[in-house]
Every structure is written in C-alpha cells, then in structure tokens.
C-alpha cells in the first residue's frame, strides 16, 4: 500500500483546528452547530462532549483496527461510538446536570455526527493509536472552536450576553437565537472563514468527508444528484 509522506505529529494535531476544520471547512456536523449554539456556554459543552467521544472512539477503533473484519466494520464502529456517547451522557447527567438538560436529545445525536464516523473510517482504521488520538484531539478542538464562534455570535447578537455576562443589552436581535438565526450565522461564518483562508467553500457537502463514501452508491455518480 503506497504511503503518503508522513506528516509530523504536530501537524496531525493542528490540521484539525484551522486548515481542515471539520465544521467550517469540511462542512460536517452541521446539526449540532445549528442546534446547540444558542448560548456560547452550551456550544463549548457540546464541542467538548463531542471531542470526548471522538478521542475515545478513535483510540479504541485504532487499537482494534487489525481485529475488526471489513464486513462488520460499520456496525462495530457504531457500537463503539454509541458506547462512548452513553458514557459521556452518564458523566454529564451526574456532574453537570444543567448542561445535560440544555443539550437534550443532541447529546444522543453525537452518535451520528458525521465527523466521528468519518474520522474513524478515514483515519483511525489506518493509523496507529497515538496518531489517531492526535487527529481526534485536533478535530475535536477545531469543532469546539467553530461551535464556540457561532455560539458567541448568536448569544451576543441575540441575547445581549456572553457566557451569561450581559454585554450588549439593548442592541439584541432575538431572532438570532432562534432557528432562522442559526442558519444565517453559520452561513455567514463559513463564508467569512473561506474568505480568510482564501479557499472557496465547496459547492456541495463533500462526498470525500462523508463517512459513507466508500459504501454509498451515490458517490459513484456524484452526490449532487
């Protein structure tokens, strides 16, 4: 199997933060980015919870990569990811119940976050545990930062507070904290980030980033059907 040039460990970690940010560049994990970013506090909580699951699943899947047969790859990964999601649910319910209630169903929905399955399929099953852990950490932090950015904008603009501290009271536009605002802010943030990175945003949600790309028939004809 041809090996691409070995990226340094540091690069493995930092690539997930800006250059290949899973949310703003890879356009994965949109659901939590829209739903849990009404307040910056919840956004960070969601980002860190996802990072926990990402780290855990990447490490375990990488450790078991030679053991899991190809035919049951997908169900096996899903079970492992679901296991970590349930673990973080226990932890949050017991130690941070306010965050647990705020995130609600979306905590369970981390299971189907494209980022986690995607990294498992693209990276963890082909690399050793240490690199997989770094990759997961970088991606997780990048995701958390993206969520935090969107959350801060929505909270500052929509409720006049930031992390609970009233800052711009009197200038708020409440619609930003509701559904339409979520779509709008995320769209603008992606456009601005693309402009800064001088890279055009993809026209479609990329098939390359989608964890189903190897099995999905659509990718053979192109996702833009």
């Amino acid at each position, binding site marked *: 199997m041809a090996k691409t040039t070995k990226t340094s460990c540091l690069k493995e970690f930092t690539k997930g933060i800006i250059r290949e940010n899973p949310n703003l560049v890879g356009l994965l994990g949109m659901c939590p980015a829209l739903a849990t970013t009404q*307040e910056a506090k919840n956004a960070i909580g969601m980002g860190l919870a996802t990072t926990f699951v990402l780290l855990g699943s990447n490490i375990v899947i990488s450790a078991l990569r030679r053991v899991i*047969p190809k035919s*049951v790859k997908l169900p096996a990964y899903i079970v*492992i990811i679901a296991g970590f999601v349930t673990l973080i649910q226990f932890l949050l319910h*017991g130690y941070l119940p306010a965050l647990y209630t705020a995130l*609600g169903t979306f905590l369970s929905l981390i299971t189907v976050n494209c980022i986690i399955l995607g990294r498992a399929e693209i990276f963890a099953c082909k690399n050793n545990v240490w690199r997989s852990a770094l990759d997961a950490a970088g991606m997780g932090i990048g995701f958390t930062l993206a969520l935090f950015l969107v959350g801060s904008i929505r909270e500052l603009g*929509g409720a006049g507070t930031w992390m609970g501290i009233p800052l711009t009271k009197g200038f708020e536009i409440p619609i930003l904290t*509701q559904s339409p605002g979520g779509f709008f802010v995320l769209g603008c943030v992606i456009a601005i980030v693309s402009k800064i990175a001088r890279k055009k945003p993809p026209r479609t949600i990329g098939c390359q980033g989608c964890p189903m790309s190897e099995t999905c028939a659509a990718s053979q004809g192109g996702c833009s059907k």
Partner: protein
Amino acid sequence: MNDTIKAPIVLTLICSAVCGLLALGNHLTKDKIAAAESQAIQDSLANAFGEAEYTTLDLQFDGVNQLFSNPDGTTIFDITTSGYEKNSQHLLIGIDENGEVSAISFVSISDSPTQSKKVQETAFLSQFIGQSEVNETYDAIAGATKSSDGVHTAVTRALNIYCNHKEEILHGKDN
C-alpha cells in the same frame, strides 16, 4: 469461511464489551445522578420557600411529580410542563394553607435563553401569586407565549389538584 465466522464473533464480542462497560458506568453514576436531581430540587425549595425541613407527601396525582410540605403549612407541587419544547419547564408551586399561591420557583427550564429569562421574572410571575382560583385568562409575555403557557398550565394544575383533593393533602401532612 474464516471471515464469515470471525465477523459475527468479533461483533458480538465488541457489543458485549460495550454493554458491560456501560452497565459498569451506569452502576457507578446512578447514585450521583439521583443525588444531583434531588439536590436541584432542594436548592429550589430553599430559594423560594426558605430553609426548612421539607417532608415529601406520600400521594400520587396525575401530572405532578411529587408533593412536599413545609412546617408552616405550605404545600409545594413539583410539576413538569411543556414550554416551547416538550417538558422543558420543571417548577415548584407553593400553595399556602389559605389555598393561595404563595410562590413559584423554577428547578430547571430549557426553553430558548431569552424566553427562559423572561418567564422567570417577578413581573410576570407576580400575577399568579395570591391566586386561589383557576383563572382561564392571564397575561402572557409577548414573544414568549408558549413558555408563558407552560407556567399557566402548571399553576392551573396545582390549584385544581389542591382544590379537589384538599382533604387528602391535609391528611397526608398530619401523618
């Protein structure tokens, strides 16, 4: 042939391992979870009704999680209603011995931030204080209609149950 046997075995092993791990996790955290939940309720009770010995009444009513009673005669209803989201409001409604609403306090509310803040304001809640009969109409907050509805539903439910089951509740306190 090897793979056909290996695949289900590996999958079953992984499933069992994960289940076992989760069972362990559940065992370790369930006490903490129960403690956290009762702590939240105790904090809310103390906030709205003062530090005191609260006894839980051994009565079950539809739509009420539990009832507490206070040494000075107040009955407190622990109710969960839907605001903007299903079951997003968890509140405590205190009805004193005259049958009037004495205080309303929130254990948790998970509507959107602005709406959550608005319905917790005294200006809105004060219209319910002192009510002894169910009011069909009330003043909702503009832009937070569903959240306001949730609070109104909870107060109505508490008052209805108190009026209809007064004897049971007062007896329950004496026991």
